[in-house]
């Protein structure tokens, strides 16, 4: 899936609304080393029909919980290499505190409920990345 241009996406959201005072973004990058193995490629599989609904649900939940103006999630799929961008989340609002919380919330929910799976290819072979307990813990902080 095609790459995104972070500057373009941030400027587009910001300039679309003059009542935006704060714009918080998260960019995920493929790291060169994961759990001590050198990563050659990272392949992202997803469940297309579910992905769109899951991401929309996460954004809607964020808009319900915080006073934000707009949000964007872009998630790449297919085969990526180290230093490629994986994911972009942008949240805008009148004030920074709500935008920071909503952006981190979206990332924590995306990590635990959006149907993406990573497979790493290293010199030791290919393996599926294991889900992390720290991601479950990060999500649990937001339970109401």
């Amino acid at each position: 899936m095609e790459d995104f241009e972070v500057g373009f996406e941030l400027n587009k959201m910001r300039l679309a609304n003059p009542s935006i005072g704060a714009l918080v973004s998260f960019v995920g990058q493929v790291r060169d080393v994961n759990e001590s193995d050198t990563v050659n490629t990272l392949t992202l599989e997803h469940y297309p029909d579910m992905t769109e609904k899951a991401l929309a649900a996460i954004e809607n939940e964020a808009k319900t919980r915080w006073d934000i103006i707009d949000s964007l999630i872009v998630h790449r799929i297919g085969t990526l290499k180290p230093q490629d961008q994986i994911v972009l989340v942008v949240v805008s609002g009148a004030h920074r505190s709500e935008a920071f919380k909503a952006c981190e919330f979206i990332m924590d929910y995306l990590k635990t409920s959006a149907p993406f799976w990573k497979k790493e290819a290293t010199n030791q072979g290919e393996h599926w990345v294991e889900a992390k307990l720290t991601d479950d813990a990060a999500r649990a902080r937001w339970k109401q």
Partner: protein
Amino acid sequence: MNIKILYFARIKEAVNYSTEEITLPNDIFTVTALKNYLSLRGDIWADLFNGKQVVRAAINHELVDNLANIKSGDEVAFFPPVTGG
């Protein structure tokens, strides 16, 4: 009843299916019952669905728990815990 089942990631590779349409016996109406039914297909299936590893399920593109009801025409998906982002 007839349903469609999709498999993803590690589970897709293990069962060597990405999707199938099957006719279920009439007493299979929860996710747990479907997992138990699929376990009968052999060791690979039993290893996946006997509860020793975490297998998430979605019905019609919504994450569900093991007690969720399955009805005719549903699209059921099985996959490992997600690792995107």
